[in-house]
């Protein structure tokens, strides 16, 4: 199955490598395989997404990187060093190189913003002036310098996550783990947090590993994505490829909210055969993002037929690749000659059905 994956090999040196990872839990109905035989590698400096429905094992998988979860079999290596088998001192050193942020922020309610961000440095035994300087820099980076003496309960969700990010970056880590970091935030705040994460990835060159159940988050900031389904690796590759041409059913299910599927009213009127009546053919044009052209030429669409109409759909631009789907109506009588031309217009075309004239 590895050979069929697209964009599987990381483009630069691997930073985190998972090999034949297994993790079981004992549930009331026998063992549950949270992670089942998962192997892949995350490249240095990339934003890597792990997506799956709840219970797909993504949280367990993420936590094996900093040994908050210990796998039953298989290995995780960070910079060629196996995480399993580190003693407490070595583990503490590793964790200081790996920042982590959480869905519910996990800030200490008893400490101010300043003290929350300072805690990782305090327990590492840094001197007071060095701590103050570093905390000041980070609060600047996340734009919360004026909230240093506030308590977490006085902050909004987005501000709390910014404090979480500042705390995660305080040791200048090489890896940032994001555990559903935007799932508790409203859409606008989600955008600002994702922008901040992207900015941090670019400016500091961190490897970012994030888990989410929201494909929009993956589309927004990830370079590559791994789709998990019931603990198994379902598919993996560059985000634009997975979005343009999802191979696994699990991926399609996760993508559904973002896809421009057939609208319900149109689906109701659709018939397989016009039976000699006059009507229109409904074509679905799919763009996988593979074509060398940047975007879709309007002239190509216009050339389909003088009476062609764009009904529904949209294109997304992901890392410079245009992909998406468009529904187009053309007179049914013009269908055969049109099909030759559509080959140039889209990567895949499909006749979804016909609508009898006057049916709507």
């Amino acid at each position, binding site marked *: 199955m590895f050979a069929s994956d697209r964009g599987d090999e990381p483009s630069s040196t691997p930073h985190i490598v998972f090999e034949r990872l297994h993790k079981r839990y004992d549930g009331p109905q026998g063992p549950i395989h949270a992670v089942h035989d998962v192997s892949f590698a995350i490249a240095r400096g990339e934003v890597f997404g792990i997506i799956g429905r709840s219970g797909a094992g993504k949280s367990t998988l993420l936590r094996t990187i*900093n040994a908050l979860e210990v796998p039953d079999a298989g290995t995780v290596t960070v910079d060629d060093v196996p995480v399993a088998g580190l003693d407490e001192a070595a583990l503490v050193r590793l964790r200081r190189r790996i920042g982590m942020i959480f869905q519910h922020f996990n*800030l200490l309610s*008893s400490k101010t913003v300043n003290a929350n961000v300072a*805690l*990782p440095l305090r*327990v590492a035994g840094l001197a007071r002036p060095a701590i103050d300087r570093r905390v000041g820099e980070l609060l600047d980076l996340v734009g919360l310098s004026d909230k240093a003496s506030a*308590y977490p309960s*006085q902050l909004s969700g987005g501000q709390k996550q910014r404090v979480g990010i500042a705390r995660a970056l305080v*040791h200048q880590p090489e890896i940032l783990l994001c555990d559903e970091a935007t799932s508790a935030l409203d859409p606008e705040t989600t955008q600002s947090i994702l922008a901040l994460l992207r900015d941090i990835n670019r400016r500091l060159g961190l490897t970012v590993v994030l888990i989410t159940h929201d494909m929009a988050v993956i589309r927004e900031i990830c370079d590559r994505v791994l789709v998990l389904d019931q603990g198994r690796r379902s598919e993996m590759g560059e985000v634009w490829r997975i979005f343009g041409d999802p191979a696994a059913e699990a991926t399609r299910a996760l993508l559904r909210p973002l896809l421009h599927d057939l609208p319900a009213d149109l689906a109701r009127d659709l018939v397989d055969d016009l039976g000699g009546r006059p009507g229109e053919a409904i074509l679905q044009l799919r763009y996988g993002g593979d074509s060398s052209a940047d975007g879709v030429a309007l002239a190509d669409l216009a050339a389909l037929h003088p009476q062609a109409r764009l009904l529904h759909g949209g294109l997304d631009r992901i890392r410079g690749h245009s992909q998406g789907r468009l529904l187009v109506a053309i007179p049914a009588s013009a269908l055969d000659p049109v099909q030759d031309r559509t080959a140039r217009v889209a990567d895949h075309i499909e006749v979804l059905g016909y609508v009898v004239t006057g049916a709507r």
Partner: protein
Amino acid sequence: MSLPALDKYIQAFLQTLLMVGTSAVIALSVGLALAIVLTITASGSLYPHPRFNRGLSIVVNVFRAVPFIILLVALLPVTRFIVGTTLGTWAAVVPLSISLIPFYARIAQVSLREVDPGLIEAARAMGCRRHHIVRHVLIPEALPGLVGGMTVSLIAMINASAMAGAVGAGGLGDLAIRYGYERYETRVMFEVIVILIALVTLIQFAGEGLARRFDHRG
């Protein structure tokens, strides 16, 4: 038969403060330590030792189950060994402390157990060692509940101290029993009860104020 003079009230009040104050320092600090040990040795916690944890938990339950007045008598040899006598205010400190240690330990344990496991996970992820987590996460996050439990325990101690009159410890409760109950001087009992109400109210308010100051959960 005469009413007790004012200095009798003052003496009794001071005896109560001495008994409760000394016992409180001992019982609350040992109880807190016990609660921390019970919390962190539970299975799945920071230093899991399930068998030790279960053993300690049983010991705590045994002391919790014995009524104070029986503990007072049963501990007489221990009291004589520690204080040198089984009579007087200091002699009451021993059973009072020992009976309140498990009481506060259980209350404190509830507060410690309720600290969000996500906070402990976050602390582990940021490279905290386990003793850091106890000091910087577990105790500070549980502090409002720990202080609230201290208030409850202090008030329970004032109640229990009345029974310490049985070993000649004196105190307000003893005054109320000897004059008010045994000599039918209802006024004395009434006055002592008013003083006790004032004391309990003061502790309750102070405790609540302190707990609020430590509570930033919003």
